[in-house]
């Protein structure tokens, strides 16, 4: 279980403090598929980075399974069981897909055949990709799938996806929906997915709306029609525009 208490995060913007996350409190239950949505600039990605430890909060606490992780490094949190799929996956010259999956899984000697299963899971023909370098020759959609495969290989109690739909074409995303659908079925831990996509929100156990750095709405997919109707929901669907 992840518990966030009175979390705030401020940045210095041209000499003035800007509050990105405002006194945010939130609990994510175990084995749930939770979608976080809301307008751009509302603090969703910052919240994800605060949970992963990439950013440090100005104040507040983060607890993971009753351990205070607020002052823990990215590495320590990863070892405790938090995974984070980046919105913009990172390229590595020289490192191959197999290397990345092995590093992610923590099994340096993982057989290539096992690593291939994760690639197949995200709809990539494993044979064509397993020895590819993670460099500029891969498209945004391919990188995104490899990023998702790498966090699947980690299989941790908490996995955070930061806008998996960002930067990929609609056709690729149609297939990715199925990947998340399967994840939803075979859930082994909590999945927190930041998304603007109605089809993702539709398969979530819970939807959390984040705006102006705080939770403005929370509920099951029952709230989706209201969200889509309300003016605030225009931003939810801005990717369709």
């Amino acid at each position, binding site marked *: 279980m992840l518990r966030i208490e009175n979390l705030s995060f401020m940045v210095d913007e041209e000499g003035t403090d800007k509050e990105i996350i405002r006194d945010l409190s939130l609990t994510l239950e175990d084995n749930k598929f939770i979608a976080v949505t809301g307008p751009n600039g509302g603090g969703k990605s910052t919240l994800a980075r605060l949970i992963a430890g*990439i950013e440090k909060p100005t104040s507040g606490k983060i607890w993971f399974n009753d351990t205070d992780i607020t002052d823990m490094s990215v590495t320590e949190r*990863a070892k405790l069981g938090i995974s984070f799929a980046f919105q913009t996956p990172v390229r590595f010259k*020289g490192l191959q897909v197999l290397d990345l999956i092995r590093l992610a899984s923590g099994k340096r000697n993982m057989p290539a055949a096992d690593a291939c299963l994760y690639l197949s899971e995200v709809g990539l023909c494993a044979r064509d990709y397993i020895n590819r370098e993670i460099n500029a020759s891969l498209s945004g959609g391919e990188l995104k799938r490899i990023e998702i495969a790498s966090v699947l290989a980690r299989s941790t109690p908490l996995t955070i996806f930061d806008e998996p739909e960002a930067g990929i074409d609609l056709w690729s995303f149609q297939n990715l929906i199925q990947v998340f659908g399967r994840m939803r079925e075979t859930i082994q831990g909590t999945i927190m997915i930041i998304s603007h996509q109605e089809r993702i929100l539709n398969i979530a156990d819970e939807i959390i709306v984040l705006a102006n750095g705080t939770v403005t709405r929370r509920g099951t997919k029952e709230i989706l029609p209201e969200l889509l109707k309300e003016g605030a929901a225009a931003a939810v669907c801005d990717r369709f525009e």
Partner: protein
Amino acid sequence: MNIDPIQLRILQEVAGLHDTPDGAFNFRFDGKSAGRNSTENIKITSKTDKSGIDIHIAPGTKHESVHIPVVLSESGLKEAVYNDFFIGDDCDVTIVAGCGISNCGGEDSQHDGIHTFHIGNRCKVRYYEKHYGEGDGMGKRILNPVTEVFMAEDSYMEMEMAQIKGVDSTVRKSDAHLGQGSSLVVHERLMTHGIQNAVSEYNVYLDGDGASANVVSRSVAREESEQTFISRLYGNAQAHGHSECDSIIMDDARISSIPEVVANCPDAELIHEAAIGKIAGEQIIKLMTFGLTQEEAEEQIVNGFLK
């Protein structure tokens, strides 16, 4: 043949050998020939006018290899060795060179290997050269290789050059002359650390129509080491040349990358790319989200880059 443990370790490092290899070979340990084998198609003979060997590969030789590793384990030894390869037409061969120095003494050890390749028509040659140094003595480990390649029509050569560890000073000079339809691919990997200094200079002459060259260098400079990469491509015919130098700079290291492309023919197409930069912070963070420490992440990124 007697191989002591230090020599064996260095042989493993530079040539991946645990014993004498199949096929032709010439082992040179501490300035002396330590073992040699010629085959029906590959004849190795000592030079009579200077230190070194001639390697004659008969036309049509296919799928054979030559290993010519050099080991220096005696502190203070300095040598210049000339190895000339004469490769007949229509060959398909692999050549493994490489030099390792173990210097635990106070005097400098130095090996200057001068390799010349005369590659026949339609040949396919793979050349691997790895340099390695070890030992905690004050004496420096110095390697100054010179490689000169003459490629006849429609020949192909692939060169893998690696110097990953322990060489204090190196000045590497590689020249290639490409005939009609010939193709050269070079992959260089270099890592320097401590106060090491490395200079690598390529001069590629695209002399024949249809010739092509691709020179790719990847290097990592750590601590207070210095590197200089000079790449010159001369387009003297309707040919294609590409060189790429990609470097990771760390700590207080210094890197200089000096490209030059010279077109002496209007149909020559020449491209140079050079980039120097630190490891991207996002790369380190990504691997930290897998549970690696910052140091482990950097090591993985560097190892991958130089793989």
